[in-house]
């Protein structure tokens, strides 16, 4: 293949291919999704590749294959590890035979996530090693090394890139395609593969004895480096290392120590770095992991060192670093003046805010609008979930009262119902999220006799993360056409008392259906079915005729990004309009129409 300009996620994918991975599984989540998508492009069937229904399933599938000696990789975003933490914590005790790398992409900022949790912390909690790459190039090499360490110690390992690594581009020397490694096959041994309290006790002791040895091993690992000299040191890792490098440039009066393996901490390496050092600054995003390790070392070894970072409020407490914030922190620590560069924009005019919004023509807008109209004047709760439709919270729709985590909307609608039986409790869930973690919530509602309306916003894809297939789409990552799981039949089999499937753009029918459902007792479901507009190509664009009375109802009620006011007139941006017709449906004077005269 030669040199390719690839996204960091592509570099991780190529690294796994080069390492001979035989099975790769995962669940989509920004910023991790493109790893599996890259492998799909280059897979000739030699790798079993799957979007699993959720992260827990993905990790379990890969763990068993690694028991059989196959090299396996699992991919997810940081909150996905919460879902997969049940198998992970136990797997850490059991161990693996084939190398198993769990790629968990963290999202400092957060840019597209619910939390700023730090997967390096999870590594310490699960007592397994974690690798932290500093660039796409580094990620390509490091993931191959991670497979080697995993096999060497018979343990699953975590690999933790952050958004700027995942979505940064660099050129990589991609290898000729390497076939999946040969593996021995599963050898039955219940003393090894069946977790029992006795096994956990023995293996826990083994792990606590093993980890300091891995820390010693890591002390000579190439990814832990020390540059420069002096009485002052900066400890850093991941993308922050690149920012610090940008600030220090060729400066050598500060020791720059890079930690590529935050757990088990390479103590011997760090102690050597700390020789003759009087002051330390830790620059890291998310949690003060390196900082606390240095503090521990200083405590154990009685080192008289000033240690600055998040815990001393010298480092940023949340959000991501940039070269500029890293420079500010470093200059303050060094007692040096911070140089202001570039054009001064402190006198800039007020800038428009641009919160993300549902696309023009998105069927979710019509679904939310139908429910809103149907419930006008009635007390109702709207529990949202994770996906594009979280954007239904924006004004003027304002149709998301709660959003917590994947699948939570369905169960939270039940919780609110138990506090207020007079209100109508709604849960909105997308099709992919329904399969990932929605079905257990429905079972819970039926079993415990809750009163709620489940709205499945079925656009036949996983839209927010880039249109990945799922069990309802009839296509999998091996390129096979498979039987579609039918949401209506599933709900019916579970015992949902009333189920209706509607087209959200048939607005009046949709509104009437919601009203009807609100008057039925028990667990009801409405499936709003219409394809994701981002996958549609041919549009009958609409425009506004001179009949328009500028009442602006279309703008006030649905918040479509294709409609705006220019020179006091309501206009439709034809570059954005998809002809969904929702605005035309609600226009009181029928001023909106298409080329075909409708």
């Amino acid at each position: 293949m030669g040199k390719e300009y690839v996204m960091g996620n592509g570099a991780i994918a190529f690294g796994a291919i080069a390492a001979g991975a035989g099975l790769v599984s995962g669940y989509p989540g920004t910023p991790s999704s493109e790893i599996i998508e890259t492998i799909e492009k280059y897979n000739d069937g030699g790798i079993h590749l799957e979007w699993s229904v959720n992260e827990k399933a993905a990790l379990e599938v890969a763990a068993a294959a690694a028991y059989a000696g196959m090299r396996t990789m699992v991919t997810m975003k940081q909150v996905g590890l919460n879902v997969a933490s049940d198998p992970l914590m136990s797997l850490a005790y059991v161990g693996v035979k084939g190398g198993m790398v769990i790629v968990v992409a963290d999202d400092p900022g957060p840019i597209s996530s619910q939390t700023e949790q730090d997967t390096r912390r999870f590594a310490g909690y699960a007592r397994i090693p974690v690798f932290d790459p500093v660039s796409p190039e580094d990620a390509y090499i490091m993931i191959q090394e991670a497979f080697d360490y995993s096999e060497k110690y018979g343990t699953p390992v975590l690999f933790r890139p952050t958004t700027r690594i995942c979505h940064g581009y660099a050129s990589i020397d991609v290898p000729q395609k390497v076939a999946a490694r040969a593996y021995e096959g599963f050898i039955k041994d219940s003393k090894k593969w069946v977790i029992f309290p006795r096994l956990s006790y023995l293996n826990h002791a083994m792990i606590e004895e093993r980890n300091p040895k891995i820390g010693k091993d890591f002390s000579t690992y190439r990814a832990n480096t020390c540059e420069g000299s002096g009485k002052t040191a900066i400890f850093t890792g991941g993308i922050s290392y690149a920012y610090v490098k940008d600030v220090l440039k060729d400066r050598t009066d500060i020791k720059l120590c890079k930690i590529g393996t935050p757990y088990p901490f390479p103590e011997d390496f760090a102690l050597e770095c700390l020789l003759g050092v009087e002051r330390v600054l830790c620059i890291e995003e998310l949690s003060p992991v390196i900082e606390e390790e240095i503090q521990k070392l200083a405590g154990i070894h009685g080192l008289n060192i000033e240690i600055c970072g998040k815990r001393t409020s010298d480092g940023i407490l949340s959000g991501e670093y940039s070269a500029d914030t890293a420079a500010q922190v470093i200059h303050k620590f060094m007692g040096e003046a911070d140089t202001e560069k570039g054009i001064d924009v402190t006198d800039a005019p007020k800038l428009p805010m641009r919160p993300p919004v549902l696309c023009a023509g998105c069927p979710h807008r019509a679904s939310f609008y139908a429910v809103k109209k149907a419930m006008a004047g009635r007390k109702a709760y709207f529990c949202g979930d994770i996906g594009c439709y979280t954007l239904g919270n924006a004004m003027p729709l304002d149709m998301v009262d709660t959003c917590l985590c994947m699948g939570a909307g369905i169960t939270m609608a039940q919780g609110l119902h138990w506090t207020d039986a007079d209100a109508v409790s709604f849960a909105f869930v997308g099709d992919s999220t329904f399969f990932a973690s929605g079905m257990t919530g429905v079972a819970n509602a039926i079993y415990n006799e809750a009163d709620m309306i489940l709205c499945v916003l079925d656009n036949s894809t996983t839209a927010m993360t880039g249109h990945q297939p799922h069990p309802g789409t009839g296509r999998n990552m091996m390129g096979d056409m498979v039987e579609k799981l039918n949401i209506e039949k599933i709900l019916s089999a579970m015992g949902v008392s009333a189920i209706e499937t509607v087209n959200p753009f048939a607005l009046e029918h949709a509104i009437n259906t919601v009203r009807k459902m609100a008057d039925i007792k028990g667990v009801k479901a409405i499936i709003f079915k219409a394809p994701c507009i981002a996958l549609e190509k041919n549009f009958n664009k609409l425009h506004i005729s001179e009949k328009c009375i500028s009442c602006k109802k279309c703008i006030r009620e649905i918040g479509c990004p294709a409609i705006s006011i220019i020179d006091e007139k309501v206009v439709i941006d034809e570059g954005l309009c998809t002809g969904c017709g929702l605005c035309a449906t609600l226009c009181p004077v029928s001023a909106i129409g298409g080329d075909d005269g409708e």
Partner: protein
Amino acid sequence: MNKDILLCGVGGQGTVLASKLIAASAMAMGETVHSAETIGMAQRGGSVTSHVRIGAEGAPLIPKGEAAVMLAFEPAEAVRNLSYMKEDGVVIVNRIPVKPVTDSDYDGGVMIDYLKSKCKNLIVVDAEELCRPFGSSKFFNVAILGVAVGSGSTGLDRDKVLDEIERTVPERFLEANRQAFLTGIQLGGNYGVK
């Protein structure tokens, strides 16, 4: 060549293709390139940026005050990212604003006036006018890239960029993209930066 180029706009305007073309052309000229994109939730109508760093060994994000060229697809986004520019950097900006649903009062003209007061090298283009011959503003990303290359501020070779357009763009859109790029080149040439 050491050159930091910043592209900014609103999700859906096509900044990503333009940044990929810049990166690929620079690589074809033998340069090392790093870049970073906005991907995910912010793509849905939010502010987006692409940082392209040619010849840099460092981080994927451009530090403030170091960008030599800005391709701004929207006037307010140009102002939002102006602090990344060198004082003598070249700012190429589209005059046509994208108004967010929540802020219909925003005036693009105010942003252009502000840019005029701040930038030593400002090129204001009109996406609608520029793209009228091609029937769609979808080609603006390649046209503004043409303006940048034509102005001489990017250090990129126009034939190398044309090669990459031919390699990247689907056959049925190729001719329109090529024409959009060449129209941009001609317009950029009128400014003749450097």
